[in-house]
């Protein structure tokens, strides 16, 4: 193992960066806060920045006084990068990370892939299909950004030990090394991970299923030129009857992931002398490498029945857990905070009714269910549960060599992409025939070059009306972008079906709320109200 890695003496968790334990707040022992976020992981930090950028005071409570090391999320999707870009860390993440767009799937000893896919089928977008970056590097970037915002107060080593809903507020008891204090907060956002203490203390459900399988993660440091692609093997000679995965991370770190089966000695599996033969069998006898981090994991798919419980809102792993196939864990969490941020902002500003938050509950559950469905299907394909299921799986792989159709069935993980909210009450259904062109209501914007920059940069984080030719009126509460004013708008017109006098209304999270071929002022105003939850408060 990496001998230089420090471990926290209380929890035995490996430490990436030691932080200074935060003192008691000035207002202790009784403090009032507008928003408290529990959790200093990527989801909690991103939520803090999202709300901080919108001008809100945010207290972030972290149980530990360090950023943990070890193997955690590494794959971040284009959509997550677009969200992170709006939070001011997208560029740095891409620079720090390893870009990849191509995934290859191998079967058995065959040297050629049976199937390969491109995570960026639509080119000319600012962000790549995926990057790999160690979670702690991303947390470093988020912490740096949060540090630039004076209204974000991150407290390290502040452990929530009691949560008590009290009407329009939530009371928290917080324990620190130097004593306890109480916070009464208007809103509590629980981003405290799969073992959420907030969820447990409120006695809320977290149902789902456990998969009976073990996987070995071997993060190793290895110099040398290999392509930054996702390589996945079904039944490779070096891990017979099981699967394996290879991914590149920054700093010459490679993630090797080996399926092990259910009845194994977990302690023995992570001993370097037992990992070494697997590593060499995958990458070659002659490689020179150092172990970074070995661990064995199992996984579960679970979610809470509801994510919004009055003034307590759950986001990320605290609300939903998926199997790792498809990189849908942390990416799903970032989708949550993206969805919640602008809604809570409008509610706090008094520009929307509190019932708008119910649409967070609905849309985040759509996302969670899609992620759970996809990762469960991938798991079934990767680890068939019966003889007949194995026969079908192997037949698909066999046919995939010869027939294109079967490649569509090969499922080594359907990688995270933005989820569409097809039934969202915030969307205005189409009244025009778009002939299957453009981006429908409930779908996220597709990035496109815009002048010397990008469309998503232009959309930013507020309601935006994207038009082709200025309308004769202004839509109050929405920024106007007229593509007639920019040269070279052919691609925009093509991607959005934005013929002259057509218009799109985007939500602050860059999802399409409505679109028209030739809108009237009344239509736009109605759709904007609807996107702010008008239909929900009447319901």
């Amino acid at each position, binding site marked *: 193992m990496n001998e230089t890695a420090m471990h926290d003496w209380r929890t035995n968790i490996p430490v990436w960066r030691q932080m200074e334990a935060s003192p008691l707040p000035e207002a202790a022992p009784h403090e009032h806060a507008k928003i408290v976020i529990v959790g200093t992981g990527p989801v909690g930090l991103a939520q803090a920045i999202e709300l901080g950028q919108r001008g809100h005071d945010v207290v972030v409570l972290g149980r530990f006084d360090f950023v943990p090391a070890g193997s955690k999320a590494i794959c971040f999707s284009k959509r997550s990068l677009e969200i992170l870009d709006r939070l001011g860390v997208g560029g740095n993440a891409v620079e720090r990370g390893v870009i990849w767009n191509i995934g290859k799937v191998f079967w058995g000893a065959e040297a050629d892939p049976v199937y390969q896919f491109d995570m960026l089928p639509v080119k000319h977008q600012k962000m790549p299909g995926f990057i790999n970056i160690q979670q702690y590097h991303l947390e470093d970037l988020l912490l740096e950004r949060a540090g630039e915002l004076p209204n974000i107060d991150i407290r390290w080593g502040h452990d929530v030990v009691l949560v008590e809903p009290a009407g329009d507020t939530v009371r928290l008891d917080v324990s620190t090394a130097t004593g306890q204090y109480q916070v009464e907060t208007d809103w509590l956002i629980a981003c405290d991970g799969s073992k959420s203490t907030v969820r447990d203390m409120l006695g809320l459900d977290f149902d789902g299923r456990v998969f009976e399988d073990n996987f070995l993660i071997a993060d190793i440091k290895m110099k040398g030129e290999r392509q930054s692609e996702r390589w996945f093997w079904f039944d490779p000679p070096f891990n017979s009857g099981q699967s394996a995965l290879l991914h590149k991370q920054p700093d010459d770190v490679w993630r090797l992931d080996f399926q092990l089966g259910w009845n194994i000695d977990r302690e023995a599996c992570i001993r370097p002398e037992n990992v070494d033969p697997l590593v060499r069998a995958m990458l070659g006898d002659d490689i020179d490498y150092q172990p970074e981090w070995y661990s064995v994991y199992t996984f579960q798919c679970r979610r809470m029945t509801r994510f919004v419980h009055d003034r307590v809102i759950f986001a990320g792993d605290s609300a939903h857990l998926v199997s790792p196939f498809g990189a849908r864990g942390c990416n799903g969490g970032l989708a949550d905070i993206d969805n919640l941020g602008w809604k809570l902002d409008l509610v706090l500003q008094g520009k929307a009714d509190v019932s708008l938050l119910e649409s967070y509950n609905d849309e985040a559950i759509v996302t969670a269910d899609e992620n759970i469905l*996809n990762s469960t*299907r991938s798991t*079934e*394909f990767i680890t*068939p549960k*019966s*003889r*007949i*299921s194995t026969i*079908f799986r192997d037949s*698909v792989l066999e*046919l995939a060599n*010869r*027939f*294109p*159709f079967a*490649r*569509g*069935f090969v*499922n080594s993980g*359907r990688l995270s992409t933005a989820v569409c909210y097809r039934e969202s009450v915030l969307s205005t259904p189409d009244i025009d025939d778009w002939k299957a062109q453009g981006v429908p209501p409930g779908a996220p914007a597709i990035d496109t070059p815009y002048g010397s920059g990008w469309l998503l940069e232009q959309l930013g984080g507020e309601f935006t009306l994207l038009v082709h030719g200025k309308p004769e009126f202004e839509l109050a509460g929405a920024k106007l972008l007229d593509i007639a004013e920019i040269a070279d708008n052919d691609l925009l017109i093509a991607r959005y079906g934005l013929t002259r006098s057509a218009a799109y209304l985007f939500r602050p999270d860059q999802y399409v709320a409505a679109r028209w071929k030739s809108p009237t002022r009344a239509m736009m105003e109605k759709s904007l109200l609807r996107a702010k939850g008008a239909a929900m408060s009447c319901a």
Partner: protein
Amino acid sequence: MRLITELNIADPDGIYERLIALHDGCSDEESMRINARLVLLLINHIGDPEAIGEALACAAGDDS
């Protein structure tokens, strides 16, 4: 070739899931019978003897 060998269904993962679920809790014998019935139903639906002939050859592995 009359047989469609490009992907011809919108949601392969969903169909595959239903196909596997069809065999939940079945013995090997039962699964073989289910598969046989399924093949017969689909063959009849396709109807075109040329396409069926090509599919038979592909399944046997002697297409190339």
